[in-house]
């Protein structure tokens, strides 16, 4: 086995396409998981079981079934019911939905960690419930959960190659395509391996910077 820089150069156009798709999955998947996770966490605090039981059941189900099965389900079964999206859109939604069932637990812990005295002060000042959430509780809760949310972003990055299974050509998909066309496996797989490390490192730097900004 010899290392061929020529193959690296040939792979680069495929690589950039794959990188772009991987980053889209990561960014939009994260945003969906952050937003939906917060929605689940808030719904789980609803005063009635008519809300908390269905939400709890559905999220428990999603969290405990494999992402790959969910990808196949959304990609192959939904079109039978007349619902069709592109592979990338389906994949982004699936991964965002899957991870939202983890981020909801992070938010829950963050909300519960806000001292009860904060709720009491808000009541004593007669703040409306909605205002109490938006200016008192959530700002303090979100600040606490940024590190934990960051860990799920890194986790999600490592799950993005699963989308290859529903024909999305992210980095691994492009590497496989290139390898099968050129019978060169070492170079493309090494390149994307390095790329995964670089992206997680940059993402962790960005999150640390965000944490520092949120201290105040």
């Amino acid at each position, binding site marked *: 086995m010899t290392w061929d820089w020529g193959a690296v150069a040939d792979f680069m156009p495929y690589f950039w396409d794959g990188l772009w798709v991987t980053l889209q999955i990561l960014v939009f998947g994260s945003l969906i998981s952050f937003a939906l996770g917060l929605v689940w966490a808030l719904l789980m605090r609803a005063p009635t079981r008519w809300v908390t039981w269905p939400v709890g059941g559905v999220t428990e189900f999603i969290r405990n079934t494999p992402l790959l099965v969910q990808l196949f389900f959304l990609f192959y079964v939904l079109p039978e019911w007349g619902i069709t999206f592109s592979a990338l859109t389906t994949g982004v939604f699936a991964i965002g939905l899957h991870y939202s069932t983890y981020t909801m637990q992070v938010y829950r812990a963050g909300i519960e960690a806000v*001292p009860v*005295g*904060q709720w*009491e*002060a808000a*009541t*004593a*000042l*007669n*703040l*409306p419930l909605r*205002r109490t959430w938006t*200016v*008192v509780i959530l*700002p*303090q809760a979100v*600040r606490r959960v940024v590190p934990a949310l960051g860990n799920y972003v890194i986790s999600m990055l490592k799950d993005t190659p699963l989308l290859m299974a529903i024909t999305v050509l992210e980095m691994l998909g492009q590497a496989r395509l290139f390898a099968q066309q050129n019978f060169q496996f070492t170079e493309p797989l090494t390149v994307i391996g390095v790329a995964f490390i670089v992206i997680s490192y940059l993402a962790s730097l960005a999150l640390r910077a965000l944490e520092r900004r949120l201290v*105040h």
Partner: protein
Amino acid sequence: MSTDTHAPFEDKPETPRATGELIRLERVTKRFGDHTVLDNLDFSVDAGKHVTLIGPSGSGKTTILRLLMTLLKPDEGVITVDGQQLFPAPEKQVREVRKKIGMVFQQFNLFPNMTVLRNITEAPVTVLGMSKDAAEERARELLEMVGLTDHLDKHPAQLSGGQQQRVAIARALAMRPQVLLLDEVTSALDPELVAGVLDVLRDIARSTDITMLCVTHEMNFARDISDQVLMFDSGRVIEAGSPEKIFNEPEHDRTREFLSAVL
């Protein structure tokens, strides 16, 4: 003329000041599990009076303040403030009555994500509908009164406990309550910071007509500001009277025991 260092402070109430009886608890009972904290309690406070609740811990003093602030609900009984029922009452009425009441907590409970100024202006703007400018002007006056004008852009974590508690007092007063509930407001402070907070409260007691309900272990402070002292034991008022009477000539054995333990 007062000779203290604080700026003179004048207060106009948000709601018209009541005269006569302002707070009334009738046959109020509160239980936590099997433990009865307040036992069929009858209790009233006249407008403008400064009432101090003393007694051993667990005797129900703090519970009364928390019931009045609607942080707890009684199991039985009726609570009335300024002629309007606070319990039992629909949520809308509770919000209306709660406007008349402010509270300062043992642990300050400032909002750590907001500046000192914003801590004080948030509720006047969102609850009373004051303009931001008017609320900030009032916050500055209040911060001057508590001696913290230089700190309005800081966050609570940058202040000492005593400074935080003075901000919390300013925050409560910014809502122009008729009643101020003080729940062991110096208990969490380092000893050298207690005097500054008590001075501010003496100043408020002297220069405003706000009704004060105070749970404290600072007996000298209680003697100074109180019109009436109530001695609690096991969820009941066992003795009530002027500070002179309670501190100098207590009638009840339990009061004597308690005072000799704390004084």
